[in-house]
């Protein structure tokens, strides 16, 4: 039995309950939302810890604000991560399950790292004013744990793309490796390509923060100026680094996959360059450019998510695997249940979000 046949046979015997492209589309969309939250969490923690240790009135104030943002972003990242995790198991089940089974302890470690990172960050956020130096270490360890979780997740995703190596890993030295202790493959370029945007997005978030609170008379205008300027600076430098890393990673991708000629890749690159130009312009007036830059960054992340999926299709296509021929047992009732709930959910969520938006802008009377 060869790997191509095995991949077909590993697909779930129950088939999928709707057309595979729908799951693929949802996976790309929800992954983009997930990675934006991850970016805000990682960037928020990193800049928060940096500003905390740097000291100074504005720095500490920024640090406190970003620490709070990071708690919410971490929660969002976890909840938004559930959806792509679900959908990848629907259409790419053989790849995801093999990768996890072979490195099982690391899948468990991922959970541990996230938990420790989250708790350490909460300690930093809630207690930091008591003993800045001591609790700053909690912030630092929170960052290390969250990044470690990212390394594991990135490695599991990369391992999933190389089916040709699986059996060798599993039956190394003529025995059966059922220990799950090894993480077999990791690409630094790929990892950094998803992590460096943390600083782009947190920088743009800082610009948005300045724009959003500007109408409030009770908030120091000079402080908002400072946050906006700091934000655009962080975002611009990170975008430059991201472009370099993007090309570095690109040359690491096996040339025979032909990804260099893919339209999605060049569209993603174009979006990155547009962001760079936009941020250079935004330096003069960060608040004016905050909303357009946020929108552009959103689109760029969606583009990145789509390019990631196209790259996966290229990888698995080499093994004659296509999600589009996954056996389908259409279930209209449960599909309608989800779609209906999704629309209802967006409407329901709008209410608390409007309350918060108005409150933050000082347009809601207090009790």
């Amino acid at each position, binding site marked *: 039995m060869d790997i191509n046949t095995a991949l077909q046979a590993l697909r779930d015997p129950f088939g999928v309950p709707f057309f595979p492209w729908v799951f693929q589309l949802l996976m790309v969309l929800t992954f983009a939302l997930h990675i934006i939250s991850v970016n805000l969490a990682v960037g928020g923690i990193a800049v928060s810890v940096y500003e905390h240790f740097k000291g100074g009135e504005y720095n500490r104030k920024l640090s406190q604000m970003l620490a709070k943002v990071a708690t919410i972003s971490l929660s969002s990242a*976890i*909840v938004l991560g559930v959806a792509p995790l679900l959908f990848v*198991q629907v259409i790419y089940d053989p790849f995801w399950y093999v990768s996890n089974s072979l490195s099982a302890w690391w899948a468990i470690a991922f*959970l541990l790292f996230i938990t420790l990172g*989250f708790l350490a960050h909460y300690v930093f956020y809630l207690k930091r004013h008591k003993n800045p130096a001591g609790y700053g270490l909690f912030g630092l360890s929170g960052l290390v744990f969250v990044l470690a979780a990212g390394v594991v997740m990135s490695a599991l995703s990369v391992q999933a793309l190389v089916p040709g190596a699986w059996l060798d890993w599993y039956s190394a030295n003529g025995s059966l490796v059922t220990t799950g202790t090894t993480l077999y493959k990791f690409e630094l370029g790929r990892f950094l390509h998803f992590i460096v945007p943390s600083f782009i997005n947190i920088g743009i978030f800082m610009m948005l923060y300045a724009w959003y609170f500007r109408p409030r008379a009770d908030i120091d205008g000079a402080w908002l100026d400072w946050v906006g300027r700091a934000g655009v600076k962080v975002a611009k430098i990170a975008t430059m680094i991201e472009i370099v890393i993007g090309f570095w990673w690109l040359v690491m991708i096996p040339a025979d996959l032909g990804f260099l000629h893919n339209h999605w890749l060049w569209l993603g690159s174009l979006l990155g360059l547009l962001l760079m130009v936009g941020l250079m312009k935004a330096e003069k007036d960060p608040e004016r450019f905050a909303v357009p830059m946020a929108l552009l960054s959103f689109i760029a992340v969606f583009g990145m998510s789509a390019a990631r999926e196209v790259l996966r299709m290229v990888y698995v296509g080499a093994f004659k695997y296509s999600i589009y021929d996954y056996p389908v047992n259409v279930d209209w009732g449960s599909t309608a249940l*989800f779609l209906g709930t999704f629309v209802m959910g967006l409407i329901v969520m709008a209410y*608390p979000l409007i309350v918060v938006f108005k409150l933050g802008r000082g347009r809601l009377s207090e*009790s």
Partner: protein
Amino acid sequence: MLYPIFEFPGVGGGMIIAAIATFHILPCHLATGGFWMAWYLERRGHATHDQELLDYIKRFALLILIFCFVTGSITGAGIWFASTIISPRAISGLIHNYVWGWATEWVFFLIEVVTIYTYYYTFGKVKPKTHMRIGLIYAWSAWISMVIITGILAFMMTPGKWLETGGFFDGFFNPTYWPQLFYRTMMMLAISGMFAALLAGFMKSGPTKTYVIKTAGRWGLISLSLGALFAVWYYFKLPANAHETLSGVPYDQIMFKISLGIGAVMALYFALLLTGREILVKPVLALLMIVVMFVGIGGGESVREYSRRPYLIPGVMYSNQIVAHDLEAKGIKSEVTRYQEEGFLQNNYFVPPEWRRIDEKNYMQAGMLLTKANCVICHTMEVNGRSSLPGLVTEMGSTSASELNDFLETMGEDYNFMPAFSGNPQERRAAAAFIASIVPDNENEPPTAEWVVNGE
């Protein structure tokens, strides 16, 4: 076809899923039930202008925020991860049938996250009516997420008409759905009462504290009592094989008694809280009660897991992830039958190529792989491990390869508490030879290679 095997040494992979799932019950039930109590108390807080009570609710919300939305959401995803590495085909089977159910539940998770943060950070900053409305949206969303996940959990116990139709809702609204939903709804309120008592221990003495203690006791006692009634209903809805397991397996009986005993202890504790005595909510005592409750939940969950043996999806998939029977509605054929006729090693990819054909040199290694593929989800290979395979066969008294081969042949039919062995007769003998080899101080003659390969 099976995925690579992962062995969790000493305790077995099943225990890892069980440990994460049991722990998850605490934060997830608090997340689903806590806000009904918060809403109830906040109403009173505003009506009586009791700032101390409002401060208490804010701390309660923070507890939910951290405990449920850190450990709760991570352990929730953790159940998936643990299932992925231990029993990938089982979680895959559930996902491929219920992906839209989970996706629907996910929408409610999103609403929960948005509303809980809004609720916490707008405390005292918006009108009470607006604030309570946000709390109520959270409470409903959280409970609806339970309404959905209960359908999938109950499906794993009693798939009902789904076995004939393969339809989403036929499996969802199965025979144990409603009793489980009502039972879990009551449990969420009882667990919330317990955590409310724990947090009351940090309040300063006075009438507000007494009120909170009494309220926690009232909520806990009423919901636990109603929960017990629904549990009885649930019990009578269980299929016959689950009742047989409960009455015939000592481990299951012990777990059942533990959960009943702890339920009684919790009821007594809640009844004592009705007196309003502050000593009862001293943090050490309240924490101890939470640990006791955790053990009780573990007992109950063990009973649930054991009661569906030897299946993961009753009537379809065995606990070792192999498809046991045909399922016409989905066009699925029994893998056990195929493996028994055509062989397991030839029909699976994750087999070292040199072991695919059993011979005099490799039969022990092939036997090891076959044993692990068939047994490792429930049994450990270590002598002193939990549910140890060598330990169990020693207890059974069948330790020669020949006796073990006979026993493996009876599984699934005469001995239907275990899955039928997946493999042809030659593979079965190889597995028997391997199992005999790991029995400590086995005095039987080891089988000959000739017997394993040719059956003579």
